[in-house]
């Protein structure tokens, strides 16, 4: 787990009291404008490495680390390149599969060569924290309602993928490049200041001609909740706020209906 929010920090406190599974709490800085913050992140990666070694893992050579990084990079590039050929759900599933199954997924993605045929739909962005697998239904609901997610800025979507690696730096100092691409390449609401997130969003929303935003947040997540108003003010796009607390069917009905109504107003 990481220290990115209070809930996770306190959740970790509960976890280590309730079970004996070896656990690691990784310190992820909120600030990012100083090199010391990135150095702290890199040190935490090393500490995580030592933790994994203590559990029986083997410390990789720099060359083997670089190889794995480049494999992941290739897979990410393949996923990004396939965006136009995949439905929003397939795209999200591909990103999730990379996280769960590793970079061997890349080849499967590359086999897709033809753009998916879609009727004219309202281009939307989905922005917020992570989606669980069962939550992926939201992509289907959007499509069934006449929209299409063209920017997946959830934590588990495109926004959560790290920045591109510099191949030369990967060879020279893979760990430093790993820290740079992840710490420097993921724009999150927890960052202080959060200006990177809004800079990235402004660029992507314009580039993809987004006409509306589905802002999906967990009711207990103050970090994203507090962004809602600023999101409305800075993007000047219609924003649908969907707060979720669990997987209850009534909740699902509610957000389905709201997405349909939202898209009706945008058509």
């Amino acid at each position: 787990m990481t220290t990115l929010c209070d809930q996770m920090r306190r959740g970790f406190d509960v976890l280590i009291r309730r079970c004996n599974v070896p656990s690691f709490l990784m310190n992820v800085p909120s600030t990012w404008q100083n090199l010391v913050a990135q150095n702290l992140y890199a040190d935490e990666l090393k500490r995580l490495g030592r933790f994994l070694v203590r559990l029986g893992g083997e410390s990789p050579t720099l060359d083997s680390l670089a190889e794995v990084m480049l494999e992941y990079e290739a897979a990410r590039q393949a996923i990004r390149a396939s965006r136009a050929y995949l439905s929003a759900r397939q795209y999200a599933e591909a990103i999730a599969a990379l996280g769960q199954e590793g970079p061997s997924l890349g080849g499967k993605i590359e086999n897709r060569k033809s753009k998916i045929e879609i009727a004219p739909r309202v281009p939307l962005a989905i922005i917020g924290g992570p989606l669980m697998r069962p939550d992926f239904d939201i992509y289907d609901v959007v499509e069934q309602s006449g929209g299409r997610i063209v920017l997946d800025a959830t934590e588990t979507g495109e926004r959560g993928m790290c920045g591109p690696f510099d191949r030369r730096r990967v060879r020279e100092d893979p760990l430093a490049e790993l820290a740079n691409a992840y710490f420097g390449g993921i724009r999150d609401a927890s960052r202080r200041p959060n200006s990177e997130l809004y800079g990235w969003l402004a660029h992507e929303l314009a580039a993809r001609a987004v006409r509306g935003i589905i802002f999906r947040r967990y009711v207990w997540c103050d970090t994203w909740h507090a962004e809602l108003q600023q999101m409305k003010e800075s993007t000047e796009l219609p924003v649908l706020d969907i707060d979720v607390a669990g997987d209850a069917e009534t909740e699902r009905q509610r957000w389905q209906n709201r997405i349909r109504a939202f898209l009706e107003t945008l058509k």
Partner: protein
Amino acid sequence: MRDGPEQITLRQWDQRYQQLQKAGIDQPSYGGPLSRHIEDGDTRLLKLRYDNSAAALRLWNFLLTEEDRLHEARDRGKKIVGTMKDLGTVPVMAYSLDNVVAFYPDGAWWIPCVMELNAGLLSIADSLGIDESFCPVRAMLGAFVTGAHFPIPELLICSVGATCDDFSAIAQRLNSLGYPMLWWEIPHRRAPEPGEESVKLPGGFSAPRCQVEFVKSELQRVRKALEEFAGQCLSDEKLSAGIKKANQVRRLLAQLRRLVFTAGLCPMPALEMLIAEMLAIHFCSDRDETITVVKELLDEGKKRIKAGTGLLGADAARIFWVNPVADLQVMNLLEDCGGRICGTEYMFTHALDAIPQDLPPMDALARMALADPMVGSSADRASRICAEIRRFDAEAVVISRIPGASHCVLEGQIIGEIVQAEFDVPVLEIEVPSLTDSIAQALRTRLEALVETVRERRKR
């Protein structure tokens, strides 16, 4: 009107004030009858009960005139810095400069209580997208927007990282409204791992040396910003002198807490003690006066103990209180229910511990910042609470949740479990909003039940 220790209303304080004046009470420049603060809109004061000592009068007047003091400081050419969230570290640095005054805009979280929501600060926060699902510290947003509660600081310095999500989010919202912010990182304090050098922190926690070094480097950034802001060098000598002075306040408060929490008969009520402890974090914008105010409280406490007088009765249940209350009246309520405070953890114990004076000052300040009970695990916090329960012989614990505060969701449960496992004392978890009037009866019932339980257990 009696001369002995008593808790009195604001109206009774008017008579008491006359009495003290006739007796030739020595008043500071900000002195005067307490009831005049009602004119500022502080209507909650009408519903509180206060200690009747001259020391308490000075304390309350000192607290309630802070806004004037800040304006006067600005008029005298002093620079005002708003320090946020770290609760105690950055002000020690700021007050080491002779032309800077520091205060916590966070303190605005009590405005909805003190002004009984009449200031409209929470409505402003609502309109900015920060609704009641956030901690009452959201009132700070309204205070900035209206500019009616404190002078807007020229520099804002906010700690983030292992801080509560509410505050970080609210500070970010403030930043997005155009208030520039210097963010500095306080990492989550962790235990040293095998092979890592361990550093002892004030208050007893430990941290790896690398974390202390990291915080030191962050505080160096703060130091540089303060130097640029003040236009003067913040040398090690100045910092050491500032630490020495801060320790003077901390030592006095330590004496006061020990005196009050261990006395057979309570010599100073909970409300005044809460306010006194709060002085440690930024000295209520006047460090020297803070020393005088706390000294007077200490002298009053000693005098009462020597005279064998006090408040609340010898059988009052000895309660350890966790977290500050959003509604000050709840401190009175506990005493009405037969309890007294014997130990507190108001989220800033690191501002009460002495800062090491035998270390280079930046090293000492980094250790102090890392000793913050809120930046470590809930188990760490609970261990400190347990040590204090033992020290002050508390018979029960009240964990007072802050509505909407992200850390309160889970930590109370963990603290409660650890405390009960160690002491087998009753633990009560309550939630205290900014105004408790609508739930006062329910709160009373729960606190009375706790006190009753304590008294029953004494018969075992």
